[in-house]
């Protein structure tokens, strides 16, 4: 608590952990390339350096606010140095901005522009290194790396994986996996958080937009889209609409106009997942076997568990993820000439997630030897495709999804936020569907931004211990607690990305705290305005069980093994 003077203005501060936060809260967007409030302070870019009244310079990210401090964020001296730092970074950086996947979203590009850097006086003498395209989800371009280490800290501190590290030192320093292995050779789970943290184009989403355009252009292909819940709250702000506001209707409209033949809601398949997973849970509970049940919606988490805790594979729900269920059902729906009239069905899944690109290649996401989902594009890619189409998104009249898979309950919609799967399952277990019941389920403990949430509920007189975690470092803590016998749970929901899919590796990056909350609130609002809030009350689901799914529930909705 106290006051400091920033650029001659008296500013109050409360519990900000560093001077940088005080400055930013005071409305000055001091640039940084290596600061993220959720990982440890690195202090390497030095751009947030400020000057005090004695002419002393220090990095504001690591300085504790003190009452009576007098600082200048933009003194002539500091401005000059800051510009020189960015110039130096540019001098050791691939500057093919126009063809860079990150163009327009790159922090470095942004800073160069802000600081009016029009020439770079130094030659780039760094050796040109090959790209790593081995991962199904991500591309690493070492030539664009500025060594801020954000990805290293995200991978080790948030995700507890430590696939990426610094190697060598000085000007030879690089970020890479051990022994410069390709990502595919490491324990990378494709979560994409490194890409979210990367300020430049050094780590980017492996894009599949061209495949989609090609399919759309082919008259003999029926292009079907499924849109995941978290996507709808992360698109609007790219087109000047409110942050976090659900734009599902506009998305459906734009996809139709872009040439998609049918557009569906993955929330529908999430309802299917709830049906299957709650059934599976009750069976396991009855048998007292293979508990806790681990959710299986998140492919990065599934890979993490299979790699790091293979002894717990049997605890994973055998349910396919909503994406997997949807595509399998979709392909089945059009199987046979009678149904497809000779048209090929091409399922495009629009996801907030990079790991989904990896999931569709797993053998257990194939049905009858065929890959169920043809292509995954991330939210970031769909935004680019919309821009590419030239269609004015903001003014589009919303449209509804197609039938017969075009509706998901509110329970399916909240899958996109941590705790959503659990809440949806608890709704399924609830006897009633009135507002009071729904509100009490909402307050059970599944909601909230905490990394690990634990609570108990009672189901038919049986107390159930539930754990909801997001972020793989937290998942590791949960697993170690289970392994050591310190904790006993019945249900464990894990999402690899902190806060769930809304902050997935395929979402538009540079999302600050306001964006994070807005996306979360946006999904809960979308749930609120849906009349049907329980998966088991979705009429489309019920008719599906009576029709297409008859005798095929296991084949289409479950995996045989992990």
């Amino acid at each position, binding site marked *: 608590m106290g006051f400091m003077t920033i650029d001659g203005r008296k500013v109050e501060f409360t519990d900000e952990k560093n001077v940088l936060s005080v400055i930013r809260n005071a409305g000055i967007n001091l640039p940084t390339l290596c600061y993220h409030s959720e990982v440890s302070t690195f202090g390497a870019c030095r751009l947030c350096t400020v000057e005090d009244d004695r002419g002393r310079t220090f990095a504001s990210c690591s300085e504790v606010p003190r009452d009576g401090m007098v600082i200048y964020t933009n003194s002539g001296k500091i401005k000059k140095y800051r510009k020189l730092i960015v110039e130096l970074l540019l001098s050791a950086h691939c500057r093919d901005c126009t063809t860079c996947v990150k163009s327009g979203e790159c922090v470095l590009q942004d800073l160069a522009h802000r600081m009016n850097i029009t020439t770079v006086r130094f030659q780039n003498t760094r050796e040109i290194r090959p790209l790593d395209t081995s991962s199904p989800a991500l591309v690493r371009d070492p030539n664009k790396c500025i060594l801020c280490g954000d990805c290293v800290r995200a991978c*080790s501190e948030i995700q507890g*994986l*430590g*696939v*990426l*590290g*610094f*190697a*060598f*030192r000085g000007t030879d320093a690089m970020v*890479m*996996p*051990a*022994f410069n292995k390709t990502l595919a050779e*490491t324990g990378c789970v494709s979560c994409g958080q490194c890409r979210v943290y990367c300020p430049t184009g050094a780590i980017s989403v492996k894009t599949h937009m061209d495949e989609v355009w090609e399919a759309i252009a082919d008259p003999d292909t029926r292009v079907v889209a499924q849109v995941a819940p978290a996507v709808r709250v992360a698109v609007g702000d790219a087109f000047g609409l409110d942050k976090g506001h659900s734009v599902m209707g506009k998305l459906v409209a734009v996809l139709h106009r872009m040439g998609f033949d049918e557009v569906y809601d993955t929330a529908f398949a999430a309802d299917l997942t709830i049906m299957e997973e709650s059934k599976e849970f009750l069976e396991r509970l009855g048998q007292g076997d293979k508990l806790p049940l681990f959710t299986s919606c998140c492919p990065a988490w599934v890979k993490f568990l299979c790699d790091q805790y293979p002894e717990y594979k049997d605890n994973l729900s055998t349910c396919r993820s909503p994406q997997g269920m949807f595509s399998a059902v979709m392909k089945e729906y059009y199987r046979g000439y009678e149904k497809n009239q000779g048209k090929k069905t091409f399922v495009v899944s629009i996801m907030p997630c990079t790991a989904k690109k990896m999931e569709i290649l797993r053998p257990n996401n194939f049905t009858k030897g065929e890959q169920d989902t043809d292509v995954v594009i991330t939210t970031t890619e769909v935004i680019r495709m919309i821009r590419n189409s030239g269609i004015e998104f903001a003014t589009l009249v919303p449209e509804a999804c197609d039938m017969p898979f075009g509706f998901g309950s509110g329970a399916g919609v909240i899958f996109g936020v941590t705790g959503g799967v659990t809440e949806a399952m608890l709704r399924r277990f609830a006897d009633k569907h009135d507002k009071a019941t729904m509100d009490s389920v909402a307050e059970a403990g599944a909601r909230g931004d905490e990394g690990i949430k634990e609570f108990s509920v009672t189901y038919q007189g049986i107390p159930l211990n539930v754990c909801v975690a997001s972020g793989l470092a937290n998942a590791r803590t949960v697993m170690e607690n289970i392994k050591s016998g310190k904790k006993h749970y019945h249900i464990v929901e894990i999402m690899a990305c902190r806060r769930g899919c809304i902050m997935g590796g395929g979402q538009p990056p540079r999302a600050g705290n306001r964006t994070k909350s807005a996306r979360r609130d946006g999904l809960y609002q979308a749930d609120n305005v849906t009349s049907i809030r329980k998966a088991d009350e979705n009429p489309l689901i019920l008719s599906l069980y009576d029709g297409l799914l008859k005798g095929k529930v296991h084949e289409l909705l479950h995996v045989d093994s992990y």
Partner: protein
Amino acid sequence: MLDQSYYEKADEIIDYYGRKASSLIPIMQDIQGEYRYLPGELLTYVAKEIGVTEAKAYSVATFYENFSFEPKGKYIIKVCDGTACHVRKSIPILEALQKELGLSRKKHTTDDMLFTVETVSCLGACGLAPTLTVNNEVHPSMTPEKALELITELRGDNV
């Protein structure tokens, strides 16, 4: 593939220092001391045994000059290029050695695995500059000629 004996030796060293992250550097130093280089497979093994990620172990190993994933020669010659030695012309000594042994700034070890030539910042024997060491034995007041004589002598020991 490394011989099993390497892993046994590594186990012995790991047990001595304990299975903890802070043992990483001393363990690597002892392995390097044993084999004159740090076999990559052993680094991976050590990382797993002491509970650090492979990327972390690699990042530490590549940070410090003393670790080398390449096998080093029988005689490791370090030419001091500290201030005092530099002022007293240590670079011509380095160049003479490199020329004689067919080495360069990028190639440090001779193909017959007899010699490795490196530079070192300061050996702490500035009064005797320029100096070099052969397997930690200091040779004072060197000249390019004396360095070449030394090579001949060392080669002679290996006929």
